[in-house]
């Protein structure tokens, strides 16, 4: 085993509702959707109209400025709705299924026999290309780039996150096919980040043509950005790509079976779920397909999150699971006033600081809601963010540079190395309740604008 990289800074938030390792094959959902909001910075252009019939793998929309990047329907059926939000921005393209999936055929061929151009073309045409994301910026990769290397984090350390080893069980062949395809895309290495605390699934450990790296430590040790920082940090001018392990499998199936089969195993977790478990679903499924009869009945509203509690997106009860997400979390909404809450001893309040008595109860799991727990203030405390960010970056200075819209400073302070999920814990611990992730995305957007 190679050297273990020890992550010292970070924070594990122990929550109630850890998924039990039971796999359920979910019924097909009534509708599926692809959401342009899953792809930051994208300006979508529709390829279909309401009423069109599509197969799995047929494009629904494409990137206005990079028209060869298309986003495909994960299932076959009829386009029933194009939901638009403010200023007619496309929010969801909804496809109603026929019950079974009819796939568009892309010819099954081993990626080893293909040239780089052929692999790129196949990924673009089938709509699997958007699974490749680039750093800097955390946006869909550019087909014209030749990345320095490709990074895949093979474990998730976020609160309640699924066990990736369990989720990829039995997909060894597809995973390897995906790796073979990725290998054609870069002249550099493919790096897999594994958890050093337990022996990794053979799907990862026995993968060929990859470099294995072992990590141990609290969240965000499983974030690919943190792993890149410790393996081979991104410098100005570098481009590296990242892929989720579940998405490598989807890419692998394209070459094995010649179809866009977006089936994946995700976790359903959180304190408002009766039986938190794993579900085999097709990407973009409507959430009620896995939530029905499985939510705790209370007077309180539920917050349904596609993704984990730190970085996920809020979805409605008839919303859809996000493109990159590997879990759905349900927690209580926190719309309540608490009498002298800031003075309470706080045996059931979680905090990274040691100002609540809950610190005296090690091993306790918490049932947290969505209350902000205070008012927004100017920065007063220092050193908080640094305790949960295992990178050689000054997060507060970076955030302040973004607020001042100082492009040079953002670059110098390392904005190329981070995306929202890497700073999500900073937002969690912030006493001043600063919206760190949103500010960071704004900073990344102004970087893209400035440098394009």
């Amino acid at each position, binding site marked *: 085993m190679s050297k273990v990289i020890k992550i010292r800074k970070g924070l594990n938030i122990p929550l109630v509702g850890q998924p039990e390792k039971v796999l359920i094959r979910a019924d097909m959902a009534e509708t599926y959707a692809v959401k342009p909001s899953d792809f930051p910075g994208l300006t979508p252009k529709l390829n279909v109209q309401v009423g069109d019939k599509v197969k799995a793998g047929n494009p629904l929309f494409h990137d206005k400025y990079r028209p060869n990047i298309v986003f495909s329907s994960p299932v076959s059926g009829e386009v029933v709705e194009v939901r638009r939000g403010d200023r007619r921005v496309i929010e969801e393209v909804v496809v109603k299924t026929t019950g079974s999936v009819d796939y568009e055929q892309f010819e099954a061929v081993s990626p080893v026999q293909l040239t780089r151009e052929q692999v790129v073309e196949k990924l673009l045409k089938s709509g699997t290309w958007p699974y490749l994301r680039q750093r800097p910026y955390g946006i869909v990769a550019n087909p014209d780039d030749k990345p320095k290397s490709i990074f895949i984090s093979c474990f998730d350390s976020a609160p309640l996150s699924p066990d990736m080893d369990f989720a990829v069980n039995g997909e060894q062949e597809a995973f390897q096919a995906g790796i073979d395809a990725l290998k054609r895309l870069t002249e550099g290495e493919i790096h897999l980040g594994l958890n050093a605390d337990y022996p990794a699934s053979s799907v990862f450990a026995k993968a060929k043509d990859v470099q294995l790296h072992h990590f141990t430590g609290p969240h965000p040790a499983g974030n690919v950005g943190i792993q890149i920082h410790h393996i081979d940090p991104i410098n100005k001018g570098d481009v590296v790509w990242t892929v989720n392990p579940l998405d490598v499998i989807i890419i692998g199936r394209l070459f094995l079976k010649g179809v866009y089969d977006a089936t994946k195993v995700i976790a359903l977790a959180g304190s408002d779920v009766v039986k938190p478990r794993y579900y085999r679903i097709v990407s973009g499924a409507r959430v009620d397909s896995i939530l029905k009869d499985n939510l705790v009945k209370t007077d309180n509203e539920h917050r349904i999150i596609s993704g984990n509690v730190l*970085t996920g997106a809020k979805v409605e009860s008839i919303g859809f699971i996000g493109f990159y997400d590997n879990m759905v979390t349900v927690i209580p909404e926190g719309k309540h006033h608490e009498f002298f809450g800031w003075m309470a001893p706080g045996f059931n309040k979680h905090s990274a600081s040691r100002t609540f008595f809950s610190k005296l109860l090690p091993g306790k799991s918490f049932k*947290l809601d969505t209350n902000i727990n*205070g*008012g927004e203030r100017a920065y007063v405390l220092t050193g908080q963010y640094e305790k949960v960010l295992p990178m050689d970056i000054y997060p507060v200075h970076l955030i302040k540079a973004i607020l001042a819209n100082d492009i040079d400073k953002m670059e110098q302070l390392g904005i190329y190395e981070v995306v929202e999920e890497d700073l999500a814990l900073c937002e969690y611990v912030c006493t001043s309740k600063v919206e760190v992730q949103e500010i960071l995305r704004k900073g990344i957007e102004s970087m893209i604008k400035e440098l394009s």
Partner: protein
Amino acid sequence: MKALRRYIDKIKPNFQKGAKFGMFHSTFDAFETFLFVPDKVTTRGSHIRDSIDMKRTMTVVIMALMPAMLFGMWNVGYQHSLMIGESWTLWQNFWFGFLKVLPIIIVSYGVGLGIEFAFAQSRGHDVNEGFLVSGLLIPLIMPVNVPLWMVAIATAFAVIIGKEVFGGTGMNVFNPALLARAFLFFAYPSHMSGDKVWIAAAEGDKIIDGFSGATPLASAAAHQMDKMPSVYDMFMGFIPGSIGETSTLAILIGAAILIISGIGSWKIMLSTVIGGLTAGYLFNIFAVNPYMEVPAWHHLLLGGFAFGAVFMATDPVTAAQTERGKWIYGFLVGFLALLVRVLNPAYPEGMMLAILLMNAFAPLIDYYVVEANISKRLKRAKKVAKS
């Protein structure tokens, strides 16, 4: 609670912007959030948030100040009883001190919070909790005999010139509480130094023969080493001095609360002590007068060193903000405090000036620490570009 909540919900619309009492929006909000944590939920970003907020943070600091404050009240009575040569009980001492100190605290909070509310109101901001701590720090670093009107103008000066002109809590360069003291120190030196100000006394009080009322620092500066109190007295705090600064023991309890809760920076506290000891030992080595011969560690017990190191230097807004910077900042605070104390006969106490000076330099320290990070990143990029 429910009835109270209902009442607040009922009157709340009157205080919304544009309503009848809309101009008191910030004031209403401050009282409402004091009673109830708001029901605001997350909309973007992290869906769950840490339970800590600014009110909790400031409460912890106030709790840490309690031992020093309570001891200070007792000591005011004790010193007075020494002066008049009577032997009082614990409660007599405490009650006497309580009556002396409470008005100072009330004036400090009244003036400071009044100004804070007015500024928050005029800017349409939420009222920031920062002054809850400053308002207690100011009385604790005053001599007990300070006239109340001086406390009032010093507090006003500190809040307006020290904080609000920079944009309010979080934006200030200098520690507001120390600014209040510095203002009085330079504007009314006769009320802030000498032998008479440290003991609560009214005209007509009889003073027993041989009682001086001088602080140990003043004795040391005058090279009257025979008048120095015992180490035990200095550690426990049975000595004249500013209200909250005398007992190193009480301050250590506060330090423990700050460090355990993670609110105060142990790095700054430790490095300040190291800086002070370094200067002290250097003086010992090159001693040419009795003051320089004072054992280095005695300085930690003298005057405002401990109080400054624990409660003043650690103010997160005015201290260095980078972790590496905190070490440098703290060391220099401790070192400079002793330098001013021992080598400058004009100022018996150096802690206040040392911290204010380092407040001014903290951004510079941070600048170089961050620059080092930037150049490290540039170097990394260049190395890759070459290879």
